[in-house]
């Protein structure tokens, strides 16, 4: 039997040769703490333990399981909240009270609950990997599709009738080529560190709409795309992730709280039960999976939480859904890698991070994509990862390496956050490489004006940026009128458009047609004002009217479902400009 020899925090060693496999899941000690084999040599086997090792003793047993860390995938994932290794926190609370006790052995999915199963196959059908054999209405928003496990092909030789079953009831039996019978229930197992396969990657051409103006307009992300949100503390990373989780037009949300605050997970849980999805009229929780490995939970499980989340996402992608993952924060995962690496006395690369940090990051972001599934449906996984750079300095290794593997970079800016300009996305440092891929979609679905107006906004902001260099030295007063006007329009864009209040009932989510109309009226005002100036009238006369304030407040004053009110504003602009003598 294998016995513990050494214990150092989450790292446990067994002396001598073992027959363990690398990355194998093991149970450590008499409490059966979950662990993973991370290195093997003639001399010793090293295990990282996903739970607190306090009280663990040398000599206690380590039991191997023969499989890598894997998940149970099946109905009951949605609406649930799990820890980093797929233990349902609600059941843990029912069993052990307010605190998470190490070694709590609970089932990931509810095995008692009955699900209404509708079969989509019949006896004699030949089914292949990932083909759907039955469906279950998992929540009001999600139709769960039960699929043939990966690698299995064969004929349906026995099946139940439509009806209520639990996840461990055998639903169908499949006879493979060799004549072996496979009995299938509702649960698949899948190792978290292996990407679920697909047929083909598709080019990304559809945006993941968030209702956040600065994103949808300036730095959009595609369905199946990747984005990083770096920012110092308090700059709005978590709020941005929450806004996406609430409003983006994915079918399924997987929200991973990785090494962050407990209260934020509590808030998400409470809020999502009450918040209603504007499109379906159902509570948001009906499309959401929460994974909470908060900062005070064991460090090693932070890494697992990221992989757990992405594996669940791929599972729903395989059913033909668009899934979006929020990972808050990937830095905590990287730090967990660093901590374990340090305990193994590995040679550190930059700032103590192990040399394999970049490859781990790239493997993670590689699992995003818009794909043709093996069952010929299409689905996507989009990843939005927050980064918490040390000292808000973007030159640190996690930010820099992530930048290499993502195509949207939403840089959050301390100065903007200080003046309560939220979302504090810095428009000069941020970028999206998806614009040209998405152009066709925008032109077709929102109108060609959208990207043209976007371009105007970008150049006005760039121009403002240049002028501000001068203003900082000599003040605004000495600028010529056309430049004063440009600065004023830039302010309207910044305060009236880019800035968006997540706590305002209308402003929290703004559909694309309203975004377009807002851009149009701002640019209409700009053109009108420019022609006033060319008629030789002074900018100061314009500045005295309240037209700029009126336009800035459109975001609050025109409800999302009353876009006809924009007509009044065109009239207001006309009247105001005409009144200037």
């Amino acid at each position, binding site marked *: 039997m294998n016995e513990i*020899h*050494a214990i*150092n925090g989450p790292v446990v060693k067994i*002396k001598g040769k073992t027959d363990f496999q690398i990355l194998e899941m093991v149970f450590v000690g008499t409490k059966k703490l979950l662990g993973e084999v991370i290195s093997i040599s003639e001399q010793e086997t090293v295990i990282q333990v996903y739970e*607190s090792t*306090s*009280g*663990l*003793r*040398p*000599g206690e047993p380590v039991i191997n399981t023969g499989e890598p860390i894997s998940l149970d995938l099946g109905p009951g994932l949605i609406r649930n*909240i799990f820890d980093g290794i797929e233990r349902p*926190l*609600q059941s*843990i*609370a029912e069993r052990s009270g*307010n*605190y*998470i006790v190490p070694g709590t052995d609970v089932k990931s999915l509810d095995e008692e609950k009955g699900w209404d199963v509708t079969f989509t196959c019949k006896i004699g059908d030949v089914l292949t990997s990932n083909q759907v054999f039955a469906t279950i209405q998992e929540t009001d928003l999600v139709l769960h599709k039960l699929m043939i496990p990966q690698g299995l092909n064969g004929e349906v030789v026995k099946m139940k009738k439509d009806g209520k079953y639990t996840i461990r009831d055998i639903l169908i039996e499949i006879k493979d080529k060799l004549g072996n019978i496979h009995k299938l229930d509702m649960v698949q197992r899948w190792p978290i560190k292996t990407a679920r396969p697909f047929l083909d990657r598709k080019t990304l051409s559809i945006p993941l709409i968030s209702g956040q103006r600065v994103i949808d307009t300036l730095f959009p992300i595609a369905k199946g795309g990747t984005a990083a949100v770096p920012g*110092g*503390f*308090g700059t709005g990373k978590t709020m941005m992730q929450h806004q996406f989780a609430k409003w983006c037009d994915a079918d399924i949300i997987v929200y991973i709280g990785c090494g962050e*605050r*407990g*209260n934020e*997970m*509590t808030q998400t849980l*409470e809020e999502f039960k009450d918040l209603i999805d504007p499109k379906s009229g159902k509570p948001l929780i009906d499309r959401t999976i929460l994974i909470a490995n*908060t*900062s*005070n*939970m*064991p460090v090693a499980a932070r890494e697992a939480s990221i992989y757990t989340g992405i594996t669940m996402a791929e599972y729903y992608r395989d059913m033909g859904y668009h899934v979006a993952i929020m990972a808050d924060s990937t830095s905590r995962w990287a*730090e967990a890698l660093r*901590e374990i690496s*340090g305990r193994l*006395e590995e040679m*550190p690369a930059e*700032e*103590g991070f192990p040399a394999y940090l970049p490859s781990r990051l790239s493997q993670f972001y590689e699992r995003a994509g818009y794909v043709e599934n093996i069952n010929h449906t299409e689905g996507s996984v989009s990843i939005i990862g927050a980064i*918490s750079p*040390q*000292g*808000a300095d973007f030159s640190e290794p996690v930010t820099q390496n992530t930048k290499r593997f993502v195509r949207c970079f939403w840089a959050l800016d*301390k100065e903007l956050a*200080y*003046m*309560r*300009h939220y979302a504090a996305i810095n428009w000069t440092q941020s970028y999206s490489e998806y614009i040209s891929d998405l152009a066709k979609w925008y032109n077709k679905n929102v109108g060609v004006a959208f990207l043209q107006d976007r371009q105007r906004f970008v150049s006005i902001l760039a121009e403002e940026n240049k002028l501000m260099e001068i203003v*900082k*030295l000599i*003040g*605004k007063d000495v600028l010529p009128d056309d430049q004063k006007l440009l600065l004023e329009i830039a302010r309207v864009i910044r*305060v009236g458009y880019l800035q968006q209040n997540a*706590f305002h009932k209308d402003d929290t989510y703004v559909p694309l047609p309203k975004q377009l109309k807002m851009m149009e009226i701002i640019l209409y005002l700009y053109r009108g004002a420019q022609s006033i100036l060319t008629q030789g009238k002074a900018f*100061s*006369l314009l500045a*005295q009217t309240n037209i700029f*304030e009126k336009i800035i*407040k459109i975001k609050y004053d025109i409800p999302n479902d009353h876009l006809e009110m924009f007509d009044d504003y065109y009239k207001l602009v006309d009247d105001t400009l005409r009144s200037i003598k």
Partner: protein
Amino acid sequence: MDLQYIGLKEINGPLIFIDNVKDIGFEEVVEIRMNNGETRHGRVVEIQGDLAAVLVFEGTKGLSLNNTTVKFLGHPMEIGLSQEVMGRMFSGLGKPIDGLGPIYVDQFFDINGLPLNPVSRKYPRNYINTGISSIDGLTTLIRGQKLPIFSGAGLPHNELAVQIVRQAQIADKEGESFGVVFAAMGVKNDVADYFKRSFEEAGVLEKVVMFLNLSNDPIIERLITPRAALTTAEYLAYHHNMHILVVLTDMTSYCEALREFSSSKGEIPGRKGYPGYLYSELASLYERAGIVENATGSVTQIPILTMPNDDITHPIPDLTGYITEGQIVLDRDLHQKGVYPPVGVLPSLSRLMKDGIGEGYTREDHQGLMNQLYASYAKVMDARSLASVIGEDELSAVDKKYIQFGTLFEKHYLSQGYSRSRSIEETLNLGWELLSVLPKSELDRVDEEMLNTYFDQDKANKDFKISDRVKIQDVKQEAK
């Protein structure tokens, strides 16, 4: 049976190594007896087969390889608690030091605690009225929040903490009881005295539990002090339904003790020599604030830390800010201008205030007003830096208004004095009155309705005795 071992294999900094040990657990407590009768305590920090590394809380000074007997106690570090702890004073390791003898123990608790299950938390929503405008108005403290004070050497963070304790209405209903748990780590004796005296003067001493590890006390003991304090706070909050305010000072000393421990263990250092797990360590303390489902009490934390060199990007404030629910940052310039409390507004933040202010909590205009004050004060900074380049006289009329607003804001809103307590209405109204100094068109964060209700330029001009020279009319004139 307790196992005893005579003699040590090695002593290295605060660590001792014991050979041929059997059947001991990771993080188990040990008792170390010296030949002269003195007893110290430690904790198993690493096990390699039959070799154990033990961290000695009181330090290893005076220990030798053969004058000691080590006893493994078979359980993690525990503290015995009952309601008798109220009004008592303990060492950094939780031993009574006020000469009143041991306390009756109702139950023993593992001081490390366990991670609180997020589904068992209740999201904090009730604000604590501290009577301090810069906190109540701009960085509202919520019951169950962890809101640290980021300070610097010589800044009045202790005064501010005492003022909060003194003025805060922690319990809002009849019959709810409150208490204060105070943990000192590496602070000077006079600082501890100051807190004690202030609690006494405020008449709350019998509601305070003190844990003191002073600057001349053993350094490694500091690693235990906040844990003993937080275990006590949780006990009072969750077992006796009290609202507990925990003041932890100085977190910087705590982190330094951790660095010392880590380096003696030969661990690979991270930024500025602090161990790579500093974030997790701090989280294991700060995350012990909150409210739980099946108790009516709460644990609110106000950790105090001094930023080395006033540098907010130093790992200690940086990692703290990533864990806590906001921060109150003290500003040296304001302090030098004589502003008390010198709360540096722009970098300060309360993340929980959004759900604890507004209609039904404070007042419907609070959120908008707060945003506007931040935005306008940020512009004051721009105007000031422009003024430092081109001179104040050359500023535009609007920028001059900002300069004026900034001066008044610091003088009337921020600067409120040590003994003054303002109601939330006073604070909100004062905010509006100050904003009314600015041209109405500058207030782009608040809606029309609020402006109509609260914006009152004439009153502001009268109350602040604003001379004609810089009145708003001028701004208009100039525009024409």
